[in-house]
C-alpha cells in the first residue's frame, strides 16, 4: 500500500513512502547530489558502487528470466531486512530486474539488482541506503551556498537516526546520524523535507545558515504501510481484510499509566474497557463487540508476543480469581496492541477467539546507537466524587421520625411528644431502647457530648504514586535487545489501599546465522496489592457510606473498637479503624518466559518453534485484629492465608511460507500445531476462633485451624491441543483473500465433543488501486472488506462436562462420617459456544490520507451457549449446564483520524464510536425466560427472548401513594399505606407483586465513544482524551442498600431522601416516600440508574526539554503533567462508579456481577520526566 502525498504547490504526487521507508526523490533532472553527514564527519563521500554496479545492463535489454518491478523488490526488502532504502522515483521508474534468489545479505542483493537496472547505491548507515544512478559522483553543486546543520528528534525529544533530509525539488539530501544530527549545504531559500518511516513528513524552509536547527518529528499513526501484527505473523495494514483495531502503545510512557488495560480505555472502536474497581493494581474488564456469552467468559484472549494467555472470566464478585493475564505487566514495555475483532481475524485462535483476541507486542531494540532511557513520574490521586448522603441534621430528623413512629405504634396512649424519660417510665424497665427513644442531645444546642462525623471525608484520602523506569535497547547485526526495569508504588484513594510493582523485562534475539534466529523474552515481576476489604457488600466502603453521621464525642472515630461501645443508635466497627488496622496483602510473583527459534528451511519457508511459560504465584494474607472486630466482650481477630499457583505452558510450532508468484500473486501460507496446558493449584488456611495474641498475625498464631471448608488445597488442569492453518493471497495488491482454519481439542468438554473446527474467510478489494479510479486528490485510499467466520468460547470451568461428586458429610454421635453424591448432572455432549461473525468494513483515506478512517458493520451470532439452564427443582438440581440458546450482537464502528494542522502547530484528532446491541434469540427448552436469582429479595435481571442480555427486570415506581389512591383501591404491594411508593400494576390484576416486573433497562451501553486530540507547538504537546458511553443502565444493589424503602434509623440514606414524603400536606419532591415505610421492599425502578457518562479521561501537557538541555547531558528529555479524570459527568446517583462490579448478584449459575459499593474513580495529577541518553 502506498500513499502519495502531494507536495505543497500542487506538484504531482510523487513522494512515496514504502513499507519500511523508501523515499522517492523528485528530481528536476539535475544531477543528484547526495551528501551524507553520517559520522565520522560531514565529509562528502563517493558512492560505494560495487563492481557489479558498474557492470550495467540497460533497462531495455531485459533478460529472459522472469522479471519483477524493481520498485516492488525494494519494498519487499525494506520489510524483509527492516531497512531504509531511499530512491528517486524517476531513477527507479518502471525498471524491472530478474527476480533474485531469496536470502543472502541485502547489500549483495542490492548490488546485483541495481547493477541490472543500471543503478547504484550508497550506504548511509547500517541498513540505510540511497539509490543513485550508476556512476553518479559527488560533484559539488554550484548552487550550494549555505550550511544547515542540526538535529532531528521525535516527539519525546529522542534522537532520530536515519531520517532522510532532502532539499525540496532537488536530490540534495542526507540521512541523520546516530544522534539525529545532519549537515547539508543547501541553496539559500530552499525548503528541507524530512521523512522517516512512521513519522509525518516535515517541511522546513531554510532561512539562513545555522548549525542548531532542531527538528521535531511527530509520529504518523496513519501510515497504511505499517505492519500489523496478526495471529501467528504480521501483515501490511493495507492488506488486512479482517476487523483489527490497532493501538500504538509506544508513547505510553508519556502518560502515567499503571496497567495495559487502562491504556486501552476509550481508544478503540468496539473495544469496551471498563474500570470495574478502584483498587490499585486490579484488572479492568475488556469486552470486544458486546457480550456474546451468557454464563461463560466474556473476556478476550490475550496473546503476548505470540503467547496465548487465557483470561478467566471475571468472577461474579468482579475481579479475576487467578489473576488477569495483564497483571504485573509494565505498560511501558508495550510496543503496540492489536485487537482482532471479527472471526476472520481471530478465528486462527479457534475455541478461545469468540470474545476477540488482544495481541500485545513488547518493545524490541532498534538499530542504531544503544538507547538508554530513564523516566519517572509522581502523582497524587483523590476521589472524583463522593456520594450525597443525609447530613447530621437531616439524619437526626429522619431517625427521630422513624423512632417516634415506632414508639407511637408500640402501644396505646403513646405519643411522639413523650420524652425519653417518660417513655422509659411507661415501659417500666428504665432503660434506653433506641428503637423507641431518641437521643435528646440531638436537639440540644451544640449537641453536647456528640460529634458530627463525615465518614466519607475521613475515609478517602489523597494517594501518592511514583514510578521509575530504566531501559536500554539497541540492535546490531547479530543481537537485538530490549531490557527494562520498573518500580511503581501507588497509594489508593482510601485508607489502606495500595499497590507496589517491581517488573523487569529482557527481550533478546540472537541471529545465529542468516537463516537461524534464537530469541528469549523473560519478564519477571513482583507485586504487592494492599486492600483491607474496601469494595463490595459488608465491606468498608459500604459501611462507611451508610454509617450514621454522628457519634459520642469522647469516642469519635473509635466507635465500637477496643473498649468502646458503638453509639447506641447505630454503629459498626469504625470503618476508619478497620481500614487502618486490617492487613490484606496480595503478593504476586509472576514470570513470563518465551524461548523461540526461527529457522529458514528454504527461501520463504520458515519453521518457528516456541516454548512459553507463565508462572504465577499469588498469595494473600488477611488479618483483622480483634480490636476492630466483633463487639465489646467478644472481639476476635480473624485471618486467613490463601494462595494459588498458576502455570501455563504453551508449545507452538509453525511453518510459514511466503512467495510472490509471477509478480502479481502474493501468497502466504501458515500451518501450525499448538499444545497448551494450564494447571492451577489453590490453597487456603483460615483461622477459627481468633488468634492467641496480637503479636502473631500468621495462621500459626490462630486459636484453631479446622474444617475442610476453609482449609484446603485443590488442583485443576486443562489441556488444549490445536492444529491450524491459514492462506493469505493478494493479487496485484488489489484483490485480497484470507482463509484460516483451526481445530481445537479441549479437555474441558464432553467426551463426545472434544474437538471443534473453526473456519473463517475474508476478502478485500482495494478500490483505490484500480485503474478506473480517476486521478484525484480527495480519495487517496479506499478498501472494501468482508468476512465471515466461526470462533469458539471455551470459557467455562475445568471438568464442567463431568458429573463430579460432592462431599456431603454427616455426623454420628459426634464423629464425622463421609458421604458423597453427584454434585451436578453430567453432560458428555458439552462443547464450545460457537460464534458466527459477519463483518463488512470500509477503510478510507482522504486528502492524501490527512483523514483516514474505517467503518465496520457486524453481526455476531453466538450459538450453543453454555447455559446453566434452570430446571424444575424436582430434577434434583437447580440448573444443568447445557449448550443451548443463542445471542445476537450487532453493531457498527467508526474510527476516524485526522491531521487537522500539520505545520508548526500540529493538531491531530482521532475518534472512535461504536454501537452494539445484543438480544437473546433462543434460551433453554421452550425458550422459557430465565430469571437471575438474587440474594436480595426477588430477581431483578432476566434473560428473555427478544430482549438484551440480563435485561433489568423490575417493578416501575410511578409516584407516591396518596390516601385517595388507597381509597380508590389503587394496586398496592402488600400492606402499603399513604406515603409509600406507588407502583405500576403492569399486569393489571389489582395488586403489586413479582408479576408486575417488566423490562426497564439493559446493562450494556448502546454507544461507546472516545476522542483524542493531540496538539503540538514548538516544544509543547497537549493530549486530551475524552470518552464516554450512552444508552445503558445499572440496577444498583448499592443504591438499593442506601436508599431502600424503610432503611432503619441506624443507617444513613441517600440525600434524595431529604425531600421525602412526610405527610399529605408535606409530600416532598415526590421521588421518595415516607421514612417509616413498613411494607418491606421489592425490586423497583427506584434503584435503576442510567449508566451514561462522559469523562475527560486525561489531559497531558508535555514540554520538550531538549530545547533547553545541552545535548551532552541527554539526547532527549520531556517533562509532562497529566490530569486524569478531572472533568466528567455521570448519572449514577446511587453509587460511586457506574462501571463498578464487586459483588455477586447471588446466582452462581449466572455470574453477573453487581455494584454493592465500588470505589469512585480517582482523579490524578501527575508530573513526569522522560530522559533518553
Amino acid at each position, binding site marked *: 500500500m502506498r500513499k502519495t502525498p502531494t507536495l505543497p504547490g500542487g506538484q504531482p504526487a510523487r513522494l512515496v513512502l514504502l513499507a519500511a521507508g523508501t523515499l522517492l526523490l523528485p528530481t528536476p533532472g539535475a544531477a543528484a547530489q547526495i551528501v551524507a553527514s553520517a559520522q565520522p564527519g560531514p565529509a562528502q563521500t563517493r558512492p560505494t558502487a560495487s563492481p557489479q554496479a558498474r557492470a550495467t545492463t540497460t533497462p531495455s535489454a531485459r533478460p529472459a528470466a522472469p522479471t519483477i518491478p524493481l520498485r516492488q523488490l525494494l519494498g519487499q526488502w525494506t520489510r524483509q531486512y527492516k531497512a531504509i532504502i531511499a530512491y528517486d522515483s524517476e531513477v527507479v521508474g518502471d525498471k524491472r530486474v530478474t527476480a533474485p534468489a531469496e536470502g543472502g545479505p541485502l547489500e549483495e542483493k542490492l548490488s546485483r539488482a541495481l547493477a541490472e537496472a543500471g543503478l547504484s547505491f550508497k550506504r548511509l548507515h547500517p541498513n540505510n541506503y540511497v539509490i543513485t544512478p550508476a556512476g553518479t559522483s559527488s560533484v559539488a553543486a554550484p548552487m550550494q551556498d549555505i550550511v544547515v546543520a542540526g538535529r532531528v528528534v521525535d516527539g519525546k525529544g529522542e534522537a532520530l537516526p536515519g531520517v532522510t533530509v532532502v532539499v525540496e525539488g532537488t536530490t540534495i539530501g542526507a540521512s541523520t546520524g546516530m544522534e539525529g544530527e545532519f549537515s547539508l549545504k543547501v541553496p539559500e531559500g530552499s525548503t528541507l523535507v524530512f521523512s522517516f518511516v512512521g513519522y509525518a513528513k516535515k517541511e522546513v524552509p531554510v532561512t539562513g545558515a545555522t548549525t542548531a536547527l532542531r527538528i521535531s518529528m511527530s509520529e504518523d499513526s496513519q501510515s497504511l504501510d505499517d505492519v500489523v501484527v496478526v495471529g501467528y505473523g504480521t501483515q501490511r495494514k493495507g492488506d488486512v481484510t479482517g476487523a483489527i483495531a490497532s493501538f500504538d502503545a509506544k508513547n505510553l510512557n508519556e502518560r502515567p499509566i499503571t496497567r495495559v488495560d487502562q491504556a486501552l480505555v476509550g481508544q478503540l472502536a468496539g473495544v469496551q474497557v471498563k474500570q470495574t474497581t478502584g483498587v490499585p493494581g486490579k484488572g479492568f474488564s475488556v469486552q470486544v463487540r458486546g457480550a456474546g456469552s451468557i454464563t461463560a467468559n466474556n473476556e478476550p484472549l490475550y496473546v503476548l508476543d505470540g503467547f496465548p494467555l487465557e483470561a478467566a472470566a471475571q468472577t461474579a464478585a468482579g475481579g479475576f480469581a487467578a489473576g488477569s493475564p495483564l497483571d504485573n505487566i509494565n505498560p511501558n514495555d508495550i510496543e503496540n496492541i492489536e485487537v482482532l475483532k471479527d472471526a476472520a481475524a481471530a478465528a486462527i485462535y479457534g475455541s478461545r477467539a469468540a470474545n476477540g483476541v488482544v495481541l500485545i507486542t513488547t518493545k524490541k531494540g532498534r538499530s542504531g546507537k544503544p538507547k538508554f532511557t530513564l523516566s519517572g513520574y509522581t502523582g497524587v490521586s483523590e476521589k472524583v466524587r463522593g456520594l450525597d448522603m443525609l447530613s447530621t441534621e437531616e439524619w437526626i430528623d429522619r431517625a427521630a421520625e422513624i423512632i417516634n413512629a415506632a414508639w407511637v405504634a*408500640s402501644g*396505646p396512649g403513646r405519643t411522639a411528644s413523650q420524652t425519653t424519660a417518660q417513655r422509659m417510665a411507661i415501659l417500666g424497665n428504665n*432503660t*434506653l431502647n433506641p*428503637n423507641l427513644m431518641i437521643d435528646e442531645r440531638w436537639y440540644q444546642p451544640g449537641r453536647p457530648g456528640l460529634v458530627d462525623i463525615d465518614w466519607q471525608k475521613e475515609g478517602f484520602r489523597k494517594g501518592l504514586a511514583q514510578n521509575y523506569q530504566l531501559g536500554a535497547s539497541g540492535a546490531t547485526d547479530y543481537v537485538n535487545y530490549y531490557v527494562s526495569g520498573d518500580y511503581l508504588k501507588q497509594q489508593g484513594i482510601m485508607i489502606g489501599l495500595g499497590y507496589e510493582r517491581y517488573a523487569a523485562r529482557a527481550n533478546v534475539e540472537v541471529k545465529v546465522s542468516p*537463516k537461524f534466529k534464537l530469541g528469549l523474552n523473560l519478564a519477571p515481576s513482583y507485586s504487592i496489592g494492599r486492600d483491607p476489604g474496601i469494595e463490595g457488600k459488608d465491606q468498608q466502603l459500604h459501611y462507611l457510606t451508610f454509617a450514621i453521621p454522628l457519634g459520642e464525642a469522647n469516642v469519635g472515630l473509635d466507635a465500637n473498637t477496643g473498649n468502646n461501645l458503638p453509639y447506641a443508635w447505630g454503629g*459498626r466497627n469504625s470503618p476508619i479503624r478497620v481500614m487502618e488496622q486490617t492487613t490484606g496483602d496480595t503478593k504476586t510473583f509472576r514470570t513470563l518466559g518465551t524461548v523461540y527459534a526461527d*529457522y529458514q528451511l528454504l527461501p520463504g519457508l520458515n*519453521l518457528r*518453534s516456541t516454548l512459553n511459560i507463565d508462572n504465577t504465584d499469588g498469595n494473600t494474607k488477611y488479618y483483622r485484629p480483634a480490636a476492630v472486630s*466483633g*463487639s465489646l466482650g*467478644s472481639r*476476635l481477630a480473624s485471618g486467613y492465608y490463601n494462595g494459588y499457583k498458576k502455570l501455563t505452558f504453551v*508449545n507452538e*510450532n509453525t511453518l510459514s511460507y511466503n512467495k510472490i508468484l509471477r509478480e502479481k500473486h502474493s501468497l502466504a501460507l501458515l500451518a501450525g*500445531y499448538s499444545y497448551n496446558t494450564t494447571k492451577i493449584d489453590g490453597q487456603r488456611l*483460615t483461622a*477459627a476462633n481468633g488468634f492467641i495474641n496480637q503479636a502473631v498475625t500468621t495462621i500459626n498464631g490462630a486459636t*484453631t485451624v479446622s*474444617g*475442610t471448608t*476453609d482449609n484446603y488445597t485443590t*488442583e485443576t*488442569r486443562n489441556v488444549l*491441543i490445536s492444529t491450524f492453518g491459514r492462506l493469505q493471497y493478494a493479487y496485484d495488491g488489489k484483490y485480497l483473500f484470507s482463509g484460516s482454519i483451526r481445530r481445537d*481439542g479441549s*479437555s474441558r468438554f464432553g*467426551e463426545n465433543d*472434544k474437538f471443534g473446527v473453526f473456519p473463517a474467510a475474508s476478502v478485500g478489494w482495494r478500490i483505490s488501486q484500480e485503474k478506473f479510479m480517476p486521478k484525484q486528490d480527495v480519495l487517496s485510499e479506499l478498501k472494501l472488506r468482508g468476512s465471515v467466520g466461526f470462533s469458539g468460547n471455551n470459557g467455562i470451568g475445568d471438568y464442567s462436562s463431568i458429573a*463430579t*461428586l*460432592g462431599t*456431603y*458429610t*454427616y455426623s*454420628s*454421635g*459426634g464423629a*464425622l*462420617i*463421609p*458421604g*458423597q453424591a453427584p*454434585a451436578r448432572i*453430567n453432560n458428555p455432549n458439552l462443547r464450545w459456544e460457537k460464534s458466527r461473525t459477519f463483518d463488512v468494513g470500509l477503510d478510507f483515506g482522504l486528502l492524501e490520507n490527512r483523514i483516514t478512517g474505517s467503518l465496520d458493520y457486524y453481526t455476531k451470532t453466538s450459538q450453543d451457549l453454555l447455559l446453566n439452564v434452570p430446571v*424444575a*427443582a*424436582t430434577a*434434583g438440581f437447580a440448573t444443568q449446564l447445557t449448550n443451548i440458546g443463542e445471542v445476537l450482537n450487532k453493531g457498527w464502528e467508526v474510527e476516524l483520524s485526522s491531521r487537522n494542522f500539520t505545520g508548526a502547530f500540529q493538531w491531530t484528532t482521532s475518534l472512535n464510536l461504536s454501537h452494539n446491541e445484543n438480544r437473546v434469540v433462543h434460551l433453554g427448552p421452550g425458550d*422459557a425466560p430465565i*430469571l437471575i*436469582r438474587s440474594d436480595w*429479595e426477588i430477581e431483578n435481571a432476566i434473560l428473555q427472548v427478544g430482549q438484551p442480555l440480563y435485561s433489568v427486570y423490575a417493578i416501575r415506581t410511578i409516584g407516591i401513594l396518596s390516601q385517595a389512591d388507597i381509597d380508590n383501591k389503587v394496586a398496592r404491594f402488600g400492606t402499603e399505606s399513604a406515603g409509600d411508593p406507588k407502583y405500576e400494576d403492569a399486569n393489571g390484576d389489582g395488586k403489586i*407483586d*413479582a408479576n408486575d416486573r417488566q423490562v426497564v433497562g439493559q446493562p450494556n451501553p448502546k454507544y461507546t465513544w472516545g476522542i483524542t486530540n493531540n496538539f503540538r507547538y514548538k516544544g509543547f504537546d497537549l493530549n486530551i482524551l475524552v470518552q464516554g458511553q450512552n444508552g445503558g443502565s445499572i440496577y444498583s444493589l448499592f443504591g438499593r442498600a442506601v436508599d431502600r424503602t*424503610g432503611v*432503619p434509623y*441506624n443507617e444513613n440514606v441517600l440525600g434524595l431522601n431529604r425531600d421525602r414524603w412526610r405527610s399529605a400536606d408535606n409530600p416532598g419532591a415526590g421521588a421518595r416516600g415516607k421514612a417509616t415505610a413498613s411494607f*418491606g421492599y421489592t425490586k423497583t425502578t427506584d434503584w435503576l440508574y442510567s449508566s451514561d457518562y462522559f469523562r475527560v479521561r486525561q489531559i497531558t501537557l508535555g514540554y520538550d526539554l531538549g530545547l533547553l538541555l545541552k545535548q551532552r547531558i541527554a539526547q532527549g528529555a520531556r517533562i509532562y503533567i497529566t490530569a486524569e479524570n478531572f472533568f466528567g459527568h455521570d448519572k449514577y446517583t446511587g453509587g460511586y462508579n457506574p462501571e463498578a462490579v464487586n459483588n455477586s448478584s447471588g446466582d452462581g449459575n449466572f455470574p453477573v456481577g453487581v455494584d454493592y459499593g465500588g470505589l469512585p474513580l480517582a482523579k490524578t495529577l501527575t508530573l513526569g520526566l522522560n530522559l533518553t541518553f
Partner: protein
Amino acid sequence: MKKLSTLLLGLGLLAVSGCEKDLDQVPISSGSVPTFFQTADDFTQSLTSVYSALRYSTAGGYADRLMNLSETRSDNLYAVADIPGVRDWEPVNNFATTLASNVYINEAWATNYASIFRANTFLDQLATNGAVVDAATRTRYEAEAKFLRAFFYFDLVRYFGKVPVLDKPLSAAEAAKVGRSPVADVYKLIISDLQTAAAALPVSYTGSGNVFRATSGAAKTLLALVYMTRSGPTYGIEGPGLATNEYAQAAALLNQVIATNKYSLQANYANIFSYTNENNSEVIFDVQYISGGLNAGASFPGQLVSDDLFTTLKIPYSSGSPEARFASNNLISSYPAGDLRKNSSFILSYTNLTGYTEMRPTITKYLNPSLRGVTRFDWPINFIVFRYTDVLMMRAECILHGAGGTQADVDAIMNQVRTRAGLTGTVSGTTLPQLMEERRREFVGEGLRWHDLVREGLVLSTIAAWQAVDDVKKRMSPIQANFIIYPVPQNELTTVPGLYTQNPGY
C-alpha cells in the same frame, strides 16, 4: 543447520503425535460419577449423603425450616420488629401474600426435592448395581432411604399440599413433565415407603457410628404422624388434612413404639436438650450435628436469636440490625407459675452492652454460648425430630379422637409431662385444646406448633384470637384458610411455565 532443522521438525512431529490422550482430564480434587457406585462403601457413602440432606447446608435444612416456616408462622412468635421490613421472615409471620418469592419458601421446595433426588438416585442404583452390598444390608439400606424419602415428601405435603411425586431420578426434561399430584397420591408414596421402612428397619443399632440411622421406631412414629395429619380437617383447601380418621392406625403404631421399651422420658426437661446428653433415652430420631468448622454444625439454635442478643451473649458477631423474633406475650403468659420449661426455653430479658434492657423473651432452648463452634452457624447440638414425649402425647391425641385407650391414659400422660415440668398437682379430664396447649409449652421452639394447630383444626380460630390480642403493631394480615399452606415458589412457576398452578390466596 540441516541437522538442526531436521531435529526441530522431528520435535514438532513428536509433539503432535504424543499428546492427544492429555485431553482426557479427570478432576484432581474431587471424585466423579463414572467411578462411583462400584463398591459397598460407595453405597454407604451415598446413603450418608441422603441423611446429610436433613441438614442440607448452612442455615438450611429441616430444623431451620421448622423455625422459619412453622415456629415463625405460629402464635409462638410475634416476629414483628420495632423497625419493620428488613428480614425475610417477617412476611412469613405476617401472612403476607407476597410469599411466593420468599427465600424460605423456595428453600423448602428446592431442598426437599434435592434430598429426594439423592434418595431416588441411591434407591435406583441400589436396585441396579447394589449386588456389591450384602443382601441384609441392602434391605436395610433400602428401608433407610425410603424412610428418608417419605420424610422429605411429608415435609413438602405439609407446607405445600399438592406436590409432584417422583419415585425415581428423572432427567431435567422428564422432571419438567411431572405436575403436582393430588395430596392423597403423595400420601400413597409416603405410606408405602414408611410401611416398608417400619417392617425392615431394626429397633436399634449398635455402635455410636450408627446412632444417626433411622430405626423402626422412627418409621412408625413418622407413619403415625402421617395418619394423624391426614386425619385432620381439610379446611376446604388442598392441604395436608384429608379428614381420613385414621387415629386407630396411628395409635397402634405408637403403641408399638412404646412397647419396644427402648425409650423413656428424661427425668429433667433441660437435660433433653443438653449438649452433653445427646442421643438420650428420649430421642427417637434426630438430625445430627457437630461443630468445629467442618461444615457439619447446626444453625438452628440461633435462628430465632437477634443480633443484639448474640452480641450481649458475647458470641462473636458483627451486630447491626434492630430486628428480632421475640416470643409472643400469649406464649409466655401460657406458662403457669413454677413451670421449669419456661426458664430453660427462654432468655426472658437481658441487658445489652449499651445498657438497654430487653424485656421481651427470646427462645434460646438450644443455645449454649459456652459450647458454640467456630461461627454462629456451627453449633454441635443435634436437632431432635421425634422424642418419646411426643409419641406419648400423640397417643393421647389419638385416644381423644376415639382411638383405643381411655381418658385416664390421656390424663396419665399429661401428668407425666407436667410433673417433669415441675408442676404440682394432677389434671384430669384433659380435653384436646388442653392437650394441644400442653404440647405448645412442651415443644416450644421445636417447630411443631403450626403443624399441631393445622392437624387439630385449631389453626384458624387460635391464630385469629391471638392476632386480635397480640398484634399491637397491626402489621399482620388476618389468617385465612388459604394461608395454611404456602405458595409454590415463584421461580418454579417461571422455570416450567404452565406445569404447576399457584395455590389460591397468593
